[in-house]
């Protein structure tokens, strides 16, 4: 039997540290007692109450809609940027694009949020658009920062891709446009899916940027959760949190699965 090393012990302790709080939260969401810290028997009543709360249901719908549209736009933007980063010749425009696309990854959210809000206020002042802050402005903000993540995922895939297939298609007379949609897109499809799913969960999860970019017109789910959580722990939020953890874990797992399948396929193709 191998001796248990220090690093292995730390790994398991670290994993317990990462997962225990979430499992305890899930466990307590089935607590019948209104007192969150006292166990009062098993019950699913907080879930029932959750489904009666119209404000939360509206927010869920708003969040899903914004996340769907933002993820789709982010994939378009991020893929175009990734294509420029990996396939275009060096130029000042390419350089500044690759700097701008990755910068949101390391920018504190309060700064991104504040700067976007000031932009929207200025634009409304000067050209009268966007007239009201709400879904549209959150969508613009989320598309921009999610595109950064898509660009990273897609560009690493494009870099690995065998260029000779694309070159062959173009030698045979296919236009670059046709080559892109008939050859490149099918080959990077898993990376596109992974990027879309990642963007979807990022957008669904974002509180800070959405709070700045939104106006009275739209309230997303994290905004509702945050304003309720500020007042303390509540069993209803425990139930909501459990559902969110389940849903996002599923999304994350799917996105990981697609990325991995793509990797396996690429390896199989190379051999």
């Amino acid at each position: 039997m191998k001796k248990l090393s220090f690093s292995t012990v730390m790994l398991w302790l670290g994993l317990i540290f990462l997962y225990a709080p979430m499992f305890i939260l899930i466990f307590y969401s089935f607590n019948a007692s209104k007192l969150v810290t006292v166990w009062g028997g098993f019950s699913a009543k907080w879930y029932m109450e959750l489904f009666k709360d119209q404000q939360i249901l509206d927010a869920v719908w708003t969040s899903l809609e914004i996340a769907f549209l933002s993820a789709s736009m982010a994939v378009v933007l991020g893929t175009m940027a990734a294509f420029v980063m990996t396939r275009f010749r060096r130029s000042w425009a390419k350089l500044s694009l690759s700097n701008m696309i990755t910068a949101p990854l390391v920018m504190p959210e309060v700064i991104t949020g504040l700067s976007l809000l000031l932009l929207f206020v200025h634009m409304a002042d000067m050209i009268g658009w966007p007239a009201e802050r709400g879904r549209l402005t959150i969508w613009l903000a989320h598309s921009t920062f999610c595109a950064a993540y898509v660009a990273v995922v897609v560009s690493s895939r494009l870099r690995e891709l065998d260029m000779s297939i694309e070159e062959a298609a173009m030698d045979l007379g296919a236009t670059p446009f046709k080559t892109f949609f008939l050859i490149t897109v099918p080959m990077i499809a898993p990376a596109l899916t992974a990027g879309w799913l990642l963007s979807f969960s990022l957008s669904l999860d974002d509180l800070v940027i959405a709070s700045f970019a939104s106006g009275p017109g739209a309230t997303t789910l994290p905004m509702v959760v945050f304003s309720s959580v500020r007042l303390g722990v509540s069993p209803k939020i425990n139930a909501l949190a459990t559902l969110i953890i389940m849903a996002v874990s599923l999304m994350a797992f799917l996105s990981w699965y697609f990325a991995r399948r793509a990797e396996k396929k690429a390896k199989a193709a190379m051999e």
Partner: protein
Amino acid sequence: MSKRKKGFRFAIRGRHFTLGFPFLWLTLFFALPFAIVLKISFSTAAIAIPPYEPTFTYGDQLLNIALNLGNYLLLLDDALYYTAYLGSLKMAVVATIGCLLLGYPMAYAIARAPAKMQTVLLLLIMLPSWTSFLIRVYAWMGLLADTGLINNVLMWLGVISEPLKIMNTDIAVYIGLIYAYLPFMVLPLYANLVKMDMSLLEAAADLGSRSINTFWKITLPLSKGGVIAGSMLVFIPSVGEFVIPELLGGPDSLMIGKVLWQEFFNNRDWPVASALAIVMLGLLIIPITLFHHYQSRDLEKEA
């Protein structure tokens, strides 16, 4: 012939569009907003909609530029702001060190695990970082409270006789920061450690180096890139963190992200909030450049 020519012309336009569309989008929604923040940071707060006075005015053939340095002077003058900056830096440094101490052995263990286990362990590390951030911070509220689970268990075990005050203190913020950003430390460290040439370690062992000595002299220096990338990924967002100090911290745990939020939403002082953002960006520019430097070097190595 004509078809080919048409295709060629389309290609030129297509190339321009592929570069131009994301370029314009990001200029409009990423670069331009920073210029506006800089501009607003020099304006004067006013009770109006929007709540500040214009920096540029034009009248009687005169372009007036009113740059108000008062916001920046206020940041120097009022102890609240520089205590908040120092508080943020302190919290971020402690959180980074905590993540490094916990994350390094974890990354090391994953990198040495059998290849099949590695992908599963990596997924286990990544999964929480994709699960709702807000919810994960919230989970600690129930654990750390005076009547929370940790205190209840410790009292039941008889370790303590009255509840420990953890919630609404700096310790709660540290726990929250380390918990939230640990995966961002482990992943780049793993990516670095897994590429390490094992023969170097074997050579050291063959020559009689003890494993602790080998670690300090070989493993750690070789993983410098991973340590820097991971530390920056923890440090940079920690400095601007808002949710964690707001939910877990108390009135004393001042962090700049929280102060900026309050200036903006509660006091509606947009110019001061902008000045706070500009100074924060100034503080972060060195770590951000450092991160970019190592990141691009890594990418070039792979290519």
